């Protein structure tokens, strides 16, 4: 069982620029621990001797049989296109000025 302590939750909150109340810290401690424990299940998979630092082996393993390793890197050719106008791209911005987003004073 993994349990996240309050300090870790506070640190992650700071890194994410989130302000949490003490109640919320406690709440997320429980929720994040649950998430980690759920993911922890992966450690029970019978992976044998697969070297995780050699991901080509990982993708070729039966665990993820639908992904083939080679020649499948989806590349894009180097062609410049702008399918949407600047106005369309920025239409949800709360505030713009001279074609740029406006953000509050940073310091």
């Amino acid at each position, binding site marked *: 069982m993994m349990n996240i302590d309050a300090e870790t939750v506070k640190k992650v909150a700071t*890194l994410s620029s989130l302000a949490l109340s003490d109640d919320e810290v406690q709440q997320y401690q429980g929720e994040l621990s649950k998430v980690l424990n759920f993911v922890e299940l992966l450690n029970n998979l019978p992976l044998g001797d697969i070297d995780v630092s050699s*991901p080509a082996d990982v993708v070729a393993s039966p665990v993820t049989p639908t992904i083939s390793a080679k020649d499948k890197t989806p590349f894009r050719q180097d062609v*410049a296109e*702008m399918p949407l106008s*600047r106005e369309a791209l920025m239409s949800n911005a709360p505030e713009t000025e001279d074609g740029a987003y406006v*953000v509050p004073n*940073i310091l």
Partner: protein
Amino acid sequence: MNTVAIESKYEVVLGLEVHVQLNTASKLFSTAANQFGSEPNQNTAVVCHALPGALPVLNAQAVESAIRVGLGLGCEIARYTKFDRKQYFYPDLPKAYQISQFDFPICGVGEITLSNGRKVRILRAHLEEDAGKLVHVGAAGLDGSTHSLVDFNRAGSPLVEIVSEPDMRSKEEAKEYMMMIRNIVRYLGVCDGNLEEGSMRCDANVSVRPWGQAEYGTKAEIKNMNSFRSIERAIESEVKRQIAIVESGGKVIQESRLWNEAKGETVSMRSKEEAHDYRYFPDPDIAPVHIEESWIEAIRATQPELPHEREARLVKDFGLSEYDASVLTEFKELGDYFLSATAFSREYKILSNYLQGDITGILKNEKKAIDETALTPEALAELANLTAQKDVSSAIAKKLLPVMLEKGGLPSALIESLGLKQLDNVDELKVIIAGIVAQNPDNVAAYKSGKDKLFGFFVGQTMKATQGRANPETVNTLVKEALDA
């Protein structure tokens, strides 16, 4: 002890992180044009704005250019590479993470040898995307601004970050290393190498230690140097600062510092320690990249000539001195002109002299690059040939070249139209020289009494009287005859 003596007690240790902006048509993960100087946000697409659901797709050309850089630096090229998210909050980063490479960079270890023989090891070179640009309103900088404007034109542009080991030992070595990388990427054609416009940037890791100490001192990372001069000045200033701290019994703090060009000093960025916790993890939006051996070989087979290869060729195939070869290599366009002109002239030394001397001088005055002038390699070659045949003197060349650069045309035609044909007529020159001798009896007497230097006076007067058109060799002979008569 004076400052110099104190500073000589310390060894400077430098490592550089060089960012090279690749000149692809589109961005690293977005179809938007990789181009600057446009209206804000004009070169953007959904990925650049991090609109919900927008998915990055890797630009094959950026990968190829990164491999070219790696091969040019003698780096190992990865067969397997992947992309990771580097997370931090800043308004110029719309996703709140930068797509970079953490544990599987595209290029592994390499090495560059400086002119003094110092080998600088390269730890790695990886691909990553650039951030956007902020304009702070209401003040000269961030300090005191009322709000900021965010422009994502640069966001997502492909960068190759080249990380060196701490192998450099002086600011001069750091500058040379940077210049060598700039020249390599320019020869490769993957970046214009313009520091002032930001297409190449570098951060320097600076530390000092007493001579003989095995461990490195604590380093500071210096940012915001945008010219070769500022790289040298920033390192010099930071080294002085660190030595002063150590000498007074203090400890250098590991931190990032901004170079302030106007104040001539580095200033702490005072960023919170935890801001450096980037929480890298593999970007699940981008599949790992498997680079086929055949792709690497195809790139290797089409690598352009590298600076050190060209330099060697200029010496070996054209008999230039190592100095001439290094200058023509350093300034790639001059070297290109030289090589093109060799198709029309075998006067290699003369071609090289014109390019490095008169032509470079004019270009500096006019603030132009040679390919922005009307001079053709063919015209330059003809000038070299005429010079070798002694039909054009250096004085005449000085009159011809500005016109050739400004308006173009072959020197043979210009000599006619500008009336610069060399004056070779012995009888005509004799009359002129006799006149000068007659007008300067004092100098003649002084010359005859042993003031040999005055010979130059008479030659100079003759050249002046002929507007520089007289054949210098003929003038030398005739002046000698006249004075010794």
